[in-house]
């Protein structure tokens, strides 16, 4: 459900529209659903021709960090004993 992917804003085309780029293709999308602060260089989540929200790069890094650390936490004792 709800196919939406991150794309980078590469140009503002006026009238609430912007050009976004993903993997070398460029598509025009509407900015009507995001606040006015989004700007060139931002990543937005694109769904049916609309930017749905901004992607937060710091949060993305933190999430990737969590993935990397996931293995480290319980490694000490293997599976937890039954409580």
């Amino acid at each position, binding site marked *: 459900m709800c196919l939406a992917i991150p794309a980078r804003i590469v140009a503002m085309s006026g009238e609430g529209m912007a050009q976004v780029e993903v993997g070398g293709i460029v598509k025009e999308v509407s900015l*009507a659903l*995001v606040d006015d602060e989004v700007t060139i260089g931002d990543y937005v989540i694109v769904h*049916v*021709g609309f930017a749905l929200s901004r992607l937060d790069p710091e949060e*993305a890094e933190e999430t*990737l960090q969590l993935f990397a650390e*996931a293995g480290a936490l319980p490694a000490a004792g293997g599976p937890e004993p039954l409580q």
Partner: protein
Amino acid sequence: MTVRYIDEFRDRKLAETLSRAIHAEADSGRSYRLMEFCGGHTHAIFRYGILDLLPANVTMVHGPGCPVCVLPIGRLDQAIQLARDHGVMLCTYGDLLRVPGVERATLLKARAGGADVRMVYSSLDALALARAHPDRQVVFFAIGFETTTPATAVALLQAKAERFRNFTVHCNHVLTPAAISGLLASAREAETRGEPGLAVDGFVGPAHVSAVIGSRPFERFAAEHATPVVIAGFEPLDVMQAILMLVRQLNDGRAEVENEYTRVVCRDGNRKAQALMDQVFQLRPSFDWRGLGALPASALGIRDDFADFDAEKRFTLSAPDVADSKACACASILRGVKKPTDCRIFATACTPDTPIGACMVSSEGACAAYYTYGRYRDAAPVAG
């Protein structure tokens, strides 16, 4: 070349790390039955082979989260009526074109029969078609959960501002939290009948629906049903991390709403999109869901201020009441008490080319995903 914020979330090394962690933390003395509500998660699970990376006691139940699957045949038939009998230019998303309705009619077949059916990528493309063809009535057949609804709202607001006379919307937008509640209600009903209720210990919550409505609406639900929810992105690592977080909650005896998809989802969601939806749409008292039946307050209709743009008011449409097939086990599959292969007609009478129940309709339905990607698990050992 890598695609930013996509490829990093499909990394094999990290997948192995997460897989090891899930194996290590999942308690071999119990089972973890987790439902992913969204078709997007179902798709990722099968597309990337996530099941191969999970321990045997962590199983996934595929939920009803695809708006195409749950669209009642009677509503789809109205799209076909509009195109075939009312001579309108019917615009809709590609997902819907091949879905069979009454007597196997589809929008593609209607087009072959001379109807003007257009596939659009966006609601604004439908509006542009109305602008380009002032002599034609253009109807946008709108489907989708909260993710897609704001796009329809924007098109309606623009149509009103520009005083379009030839643009209307046939609105089929439905609400995610209502579907989850409906599922739980049907589980309780089944229990009172003495049948198995809900075989789900935790939920992987919607990604992009939550981008719009936020994580807050799931809080009440997690508390009331004492079931953990982890909102997760649609990339495979997101799904695995969410599974790990659910395993941890269940191990700890917690039932909280956690957010794995923090790069996109916040607690309040997209307020601007919510306000736009509110301007244009109102709750319908009840709406039919294929596979789940009538659910109260589970769908949106167009407000009276926008009545001129409501195709259901502009055109006289019949509403054929097509009951779900008796043989179809969708209702039990969606509750996790049956598997697609438990259905008598799975892969025989019911296939993606000839879907009989909701779960087979779109490629993200539980039965269709199982048919397309999963059959080999039961048929043959995996090579390599």
